[in-house]
């Protein structure tokens, strides 16, 4: 019984939140890794692309709510997601036309692109606040829980309860669908193969008659869709604050680098590694260990390795270790 209770506590406070968070990071890291593989730079504006797409989706959600259209138990934001995706697509395509294409024509070094993307990041940053304001926004509606703590206790008779929020389940389901579509696209369609070819060997791709502008266009469209989806899922799960997406850049980049930059499978693995590390290290494990260990060995402290204030330090730590010992990441991406 104690072991079961320990498992339930662990699942409730670590397993479920980390899985949802990991799925959000994985979607974000996929966007970063695609840009790195095909356009060959680290896109610092990615976090704010997510924020902008989410902001547009929130506006659409409010419009739908005002019109009385909803999805019943599911959040209305799911209906508004395509609008958010279109908004993010329009934004990145305009940026590519106006900014990145100029530098591509000059064939500038990747480091220039990185700095340019930082400039773009600040513009997006301001733009998002302009559109939706600087305050927190709540836009989740529908049923809050799939399983609530009370129901779980009554059903199982265990001392500990387990909650599964709708947004958490939704995050994982949507992420699985998005990833399945992406991998099908990259492996089975000619455009996807062109993208992989471009990522493998740019010179050869050009001399094989692959139109680079078309590959870049499709890449941006896919990245915008992934960014808006990741942003909306994160916002549904944890609430929308414009600056939070900027902070998400660190764990997202850590995930992409841990997995191996340029490698989509790596981005997904990296997302979950970072999420599980962050949640496990910042969660006080006393209650889990209390069930598992004999009374004499029961820890006095909280066994919380870091407070949640330091959660970004976890990403930093993992990032440093990976860059020192395996710079190409777990799945052999490109060296940074």
């Amino acid at each position, binding site marked *: 019984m104690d072991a079961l209770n320990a498992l339930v506590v662990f699942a409730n406070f670590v397993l479920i939140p980390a899985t949802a968070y990991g799925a959000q990071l994985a979607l974000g890291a996929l966007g970063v890794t695609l840009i790195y593989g095909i356009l060959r730079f680290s896109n610092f504006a990615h976090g704010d692309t997510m924020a902008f797409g989410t902001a547009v989706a929130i506006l659409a959600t409010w419009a739908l709510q005002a019109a009385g259209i909803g999805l019943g138990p599911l959040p209305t934001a799911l209906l508004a997601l395509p609008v958010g995706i279109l908004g993010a697509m329009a934004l990145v395509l305009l940026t590519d036309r106006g900014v990145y294409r100029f530098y591509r024509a000059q064939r500038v070094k990747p480091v220039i692109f990185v700095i340019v993307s930082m400039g773009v990041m600040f513009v997006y940053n301001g733009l998002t606040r302009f559109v939706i304001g600087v305050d927190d926004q709540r836009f989740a509606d529908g049923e809050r829980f799939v399983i609530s703590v009370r129901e779980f206790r009554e059903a199982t008779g265990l001392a500990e309860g387990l909650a599964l929020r709708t947004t958490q389940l939704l995050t994982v389901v949507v992420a699985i669908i998005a990833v399945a579509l992406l991998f099908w696209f990259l492996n089975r369609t*000619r455009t996807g193969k062109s993208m992989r*070819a471009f990522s*493998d*060997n740019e010179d050869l791709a050009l*001399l094989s*008659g692959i139109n*680079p502008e078309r590959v870049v266009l499709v890449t941006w469209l896919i990245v915008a869709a992934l960014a808006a989806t990741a942003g909306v899922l994160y916002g549904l799960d944890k609430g929308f604050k414009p600056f939070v997406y900027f902070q998400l850049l660190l764990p997202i980049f850590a995930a992409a680098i841990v997995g191996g930059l340029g490698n989509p499978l790596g981005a997904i693995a990296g997302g979950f590694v970072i999420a599980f590390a962050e949640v496990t290290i910042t969660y006080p494990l006393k209650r889990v260990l209390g069930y598992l260990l004999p009374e004499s060995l029961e820890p006095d402290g909280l066994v919380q390795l870091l407070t949640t204030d330091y959660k970004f330090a976890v990403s930093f730590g993992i990032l440093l270790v990976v860059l020192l010992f395996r710079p190409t990441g777990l799945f052999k991406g490109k060296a940074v």
Partner: protein
Amino acid sequence: MIRVASLHKQFGGFHAVDGASLEISKGSITGLIGPNGAGKTTLFNVIAGVLKPTSGTVTMEGEDITGLPPHTLFHKGLLRTFQIAHEFHSMSVRENLMMVPGGQSGETLWNAWFGRGRIAEEERRLAAKADEVLEFLTIDHLADEKAGNLSGGQKKLLELGRTMMVDARIVFLDEVGAGVNRTLLNTIADAILRLNRERGYTFVVIEHDMDFIGRLCDPVIVMAEGKVLAEGTIGEIKANEQVIEAYLGTGLKNRDKVGA
């Protein structure tokens, strides 16, 4: 077919190509030889659109193609291979070949999702063609191997195979025989000759192996220090004093004398 007029390419203060002018006639296999650093590969890169010339023009059958991007030139039938073999390393050999023909219907986003039947049909045709090419090059047993795992010589064959996937008009081969053993070199030479005779490809070949050049090429153009030094049949080139001094060296001259 291709006319290059007083072409210059400068990298900083270094003149890689320094006023080269030459002409490549249709249906020929032209050899381009010269010492290392003579500007042969740079010339290829400028013609193929990888590099923009500092000055000068390149025309293809009267049409100015100076500075056009590589993928545009590809669709005009101008192809090139690389000195160090390039490949899409994460794809199979067959997929590498299937990447080549541009303008496939799967390239538009709409068709990728909604035109599945047509794409499947097209891919079947391409796969069959790729297998044919692989058989021609005697590497059909490697069709499903990842291209990154091929040996250097096999990658060179793959480079050649790429040019056979479309109806090329002119193909620039950059040291296609370098680091390749004799048997494979003969396979490559045969393939080049057959493509030239049966399909009317025009070839320009950079090569250091004089036997290979002698067997395939007429005319031969010699470059040195970014300029065209001489042009003529292999016999004329071998007898040319300037060429011997700049490239072939006296060893060959003496050997010819001994032979005679």
